[in-house]
C-alpha cells in the first residue's frame, strides 16, 4: 500500500479529535487511501492510549468483563455495552443444551439449509418459536445472522417494480436490504404517521407491491415505534408491513413477544423479524410470518439459501432460551429488567439529557462528537463500558452514550455506573446539575 503523505499523517496527529468515522467512508480515487488514513487515525488513538473501541474481551461475565485495549492495558469494566438483556447467554441450562447439540451435530452445519444443513436442532428451534408466539398459522425461517434476515426477506419479497417505504432511521440491514432488492425506495420521517401516509398515498396505486419497513425499538434513540398506527395505515392502503423486533423480542410485551404484542398487532404484521444476538444471547435470526411465506423465503432469500445454515449448537441453546423465556423464568427476568431500567433512569434523569429513550436502551447525550474518543476512553479507565454513538449514525451534535440495561445488573452496579457517569459528565461538561 502506498505510504501516507507526511502532511496528511501530521494533520491526523495534530487534529485527531476533529476526525470522525464518516471522513473515511468515501473516496473516488482508484487507490484506497481511505484505508491508510483510517489506519493512521487508529494508530494515533492507540499511541495516545485513547483507542478504546472494540477491545478484546479476555473474560466475559454477564455484567462485567476484563478487556484488553489496543494499547495493551487490561481493564476491569462494568458492562453496559452488550445486548444480553435477560442473561441467557450464560444460563447454565442454555449452555448445557448448546453443548448437547454440539456433541450431537458437530461444530457447524457445513451446508446450506436448502441442501443438507437443516438438522433436528433447527426443526426443534423453529417449533419452539412457533409455540412461543402462539401463531399456529405461522412458520419460521432461520438465518445464520440477524442482519441477513432483513437482507434476505426484503430481497426475496420485494421484486423489481415494488415500492419500499422505510422509516428514515431504520437499521443499516434494512437499508442494505432495500438497496439489494433493486426496487423503488421512499422514506418517511421517523415515527411521523402523516409523513408515512403521504408516502402511502403517493405510491399505493393498486398495481404496485408496497412494503413498509419499521423497527419496534430503535437502538439509536431507545424509542419505540408506533406499530399499531403503522399497521393500521398500511392495511388501509393494502401495503405489507415488516417490523424488526431485534431489540425487543423476549423483552417487550406481557409474554416477551415484542412490541407487536405490547401494541396489539402481533398477528397482523406480515413480517416479524427477530435476531438471536440480543435477548436470546446467541447469534443468528429468524423471520416469523405465514407458513407459506416462510417456505418461500427459505428458498428465495439468497443470503439464506446460498449461505451456511445457523450453527446447530447455537440452535440447540436457543431452543432452551425460548422455553425459559416463555416460562416463569422469563417473566421474572423481564420484571427485573424493567425494574433496573426504571431505577437507573430515575438515578440519571436529573443530571443528564436522556433524549427520547423510554426503553432498556438508555441514552445519555453528551453532544459534541469531538469528545467521543476521550470520553469513551475515560469511562473505560473508570470501569464503565458503554456504547457511544455519534454522527453519522445519529444527528450531528447529538452524540450519546448508550447503556443497554439487563436483568442481571445489580443495584450496586447501577449505582456505580451512575456515579461514573456523573464524574464523566462533570469532566466533559455534559452534566445538567452541579452534583
Amino acid at each position, binding site marked *: 500500500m502506498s505510504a501516507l503523505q507526511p502532511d496528511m499523517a501530521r*494533520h491526523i496527529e495534530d487534529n485527531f479529535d476533529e476526525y470522525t468515522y464518516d471522513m473515511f467512508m*468515501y*473516496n*473516488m480515487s482508484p487507490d484506497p487511501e481511505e484505508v491508510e*488514513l483510517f489506519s493512521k487515525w487508529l494508530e494515533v488513538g492507540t499511541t495516545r492510549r485513547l483507542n478504546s473501541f472494540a477491545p478484546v474481551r479476555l473474560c466475559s461475565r454477564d455484567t462485567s468483563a476484563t478487556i484488553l485495549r489496543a494499547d495493551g492495558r487490561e481493564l476491569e469494566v462494568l458492562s453496559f455495552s452488550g445486548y444480553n438483556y435477560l442473561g441467557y447467554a450464560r444460563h447454565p441450562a442454555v449452555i448445557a443444551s448448546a453443548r448437547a447439540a454440539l456433541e450431537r451435530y458437530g461444530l457447524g452445519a457445513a451446508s446450506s439449509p436448502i441442501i443438507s444443513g437443516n438438522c433436528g436442532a433447527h426443526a426443534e428451534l423453529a417449533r419452539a418459536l412457533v409455540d412461543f408466539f402462539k401463531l399456529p398459522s405461522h412458520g419460521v425461517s432461520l438465518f445464520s445472522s440477524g442482519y441477513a434476515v432483513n437482507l434476505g426477506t426484503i430481497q426475496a419479497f420485494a421484486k423489481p417494480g415494488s415500492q419500499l417505504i422505510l422509516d428514515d432511521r431504520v437499521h443499516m440491514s434494512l437499508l442494505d436490504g432495500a438497496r439489494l432488492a433493486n426496487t423503488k425506495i421512499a*422514506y418517511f420521517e421517523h415515527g411521523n404517521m402523516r409523513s408515512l401516509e403521504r408516502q402511502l398515498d403517493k405510491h399505493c396505486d393498486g398495481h404496485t407491491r408496497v412494503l413498509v419497513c419499521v423497527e419496534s425499538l430503535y437502538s439509536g434513540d431507545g424509542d419505540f415505534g408506533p406499530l399499531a398506527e403503522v399497521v393500521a395505515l398500511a392495511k388501509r392502503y393494502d401495503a405489507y408491513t415488516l417490523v424488526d423486533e431485534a431489540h425487543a423480542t423476549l423483552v417487550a410485551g406481557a409474554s416477551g413477544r415484542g412490541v407487536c404484542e405490547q401494541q396489539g398487532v402481533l398477528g397482523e404484521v406480515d413480517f416479524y423479524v427477530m435476531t438471536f444476538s440480543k435477548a436470546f444471547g446467541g447469534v443468528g435470526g429468524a423471520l416469523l410470518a405465514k407458513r407459506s411465506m416462510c417456505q418461500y423465503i427459505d428458498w428465495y432469500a439468497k443470503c439464506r439459501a446460498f449461505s451456511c445454515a445457523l450453527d446447530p449448537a447455537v440452535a440447540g441453546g436457543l431452543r432452551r432460551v425460548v422455553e425459559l423465556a416463555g416460562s416463569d423464568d422469563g417473566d421474572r427476568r423481564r420484571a427485573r429488567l424493567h425494574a433496573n431500567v426504571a431505577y437507573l433512569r430515575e438515578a440519571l434523569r436529573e443530571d443528564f439529557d436522556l433524549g427520547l429513550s423510554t426503553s432498556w436502551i438508555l441514552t445519555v447525550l453528551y453532544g459534541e462528537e469531538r469528545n467521543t474518543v476521550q470520553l469513551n476512553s475515560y469511562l473505560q479507565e473508570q470501569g464503565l463500558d458503554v456504547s457511544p454513538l455519534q454522527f453519522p449514525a445519529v*444527528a450531528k451534535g447529538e452524540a450519546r452514550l448508550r447503556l443497554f440495561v439487563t436483568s442481571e445488573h445489580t443495584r450496586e452496579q447501577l449505582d456505580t455506573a451512575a456515579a461514573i457517569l456523573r464524574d464523566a459528565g462533570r469532566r466533559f461538561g455534559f452534566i445538567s446539575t452541579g452534583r
Partner: protein
Amino acid sequence: MTRIDPLARPIGWSFDFEMVFLFEIAVDEARRHLPAPLMPIELRPGVGVLGIGVQSLCAGNLGELPEVREIYCTIAVQPQLSVPMPTPRFAVVPVIIAATAPSFLARARELDRLNAMPWTPTLDIELDRAGLRARAADDRGPIFELWNVHEQPSFVDAEMWGQEFVGVDDDPLYFQAWHWRARKAEYQRRGGGRLHPHPFFAGIDLDAVSPDPYMQFITPPQTDGTLTLFAPIPLANIQPRRRVQR
C-alpha cells in the same frame, strides 16, 4: 508525471457570516448535474445531499472588492483522497453561484471556474444576522429562505478542509482545495428552509428535493472567518495511477 501541488497559490477571503443548509435530493436527480466521474454521496440508498448557502464576504477582499453577498447551490460528492492535502470534511460540486457584485462573479467564473448566474442589480440577499435568517430573491421571484431552528445554537471555533470540483462551459473538470476557519454551530434538525422554483437552481427539479433541510451549519451573527481557496488544477493532473502493493 510532474507532481502538482494542490495547495499552491492560496487566496484568502474574509467573511463575517455564513449559513449552509443541507437538503435531501434524489440521487438520480443529483447525478444529472454531476460531470463524470463524480458520484454523489448517499445518506441512505437513493438519497443525496444538496447544499444551499449564503455568505457575506467583507469589503476589501483582494484589495479592491466591495462587500459581497454570495449564494450558492452545491451537491455533495465523493472526495478525491489521493490528493496530498489534509483529509477533507466533504467534497462538493458547486452547481451555481450568484452574487451582488459583478466583478466578483466575473472573477469567480474566470479564475475559480464556477458557474455563475448572470449578475443582476435586482438580486437581493437579505441577512437577518441577529435572527440567523437569510433570504434571496430577484425580480424573477424568491429564490430561497433559510432560518435557524435550534433554540440555543452553540458556536465553537472550527476549521475544515474541503474539496470542490469545478469547470465552466467545455472545461475539463478541475479540482480545487479549500480551507475554512470561523466559529460555527452545526446541528441536524428538520426545518428552517424553503426553496422556490427559480432559474438560480439551474434546472434542478425541486420536486426531487426535500421540502425542508435536515442539517444546518451557521456562524454567529458576526464572525471573523477566513476561506482560503487554492488555485484550481485539472483533475486529470492529480489522478496518478500509482503502483500499490496489495
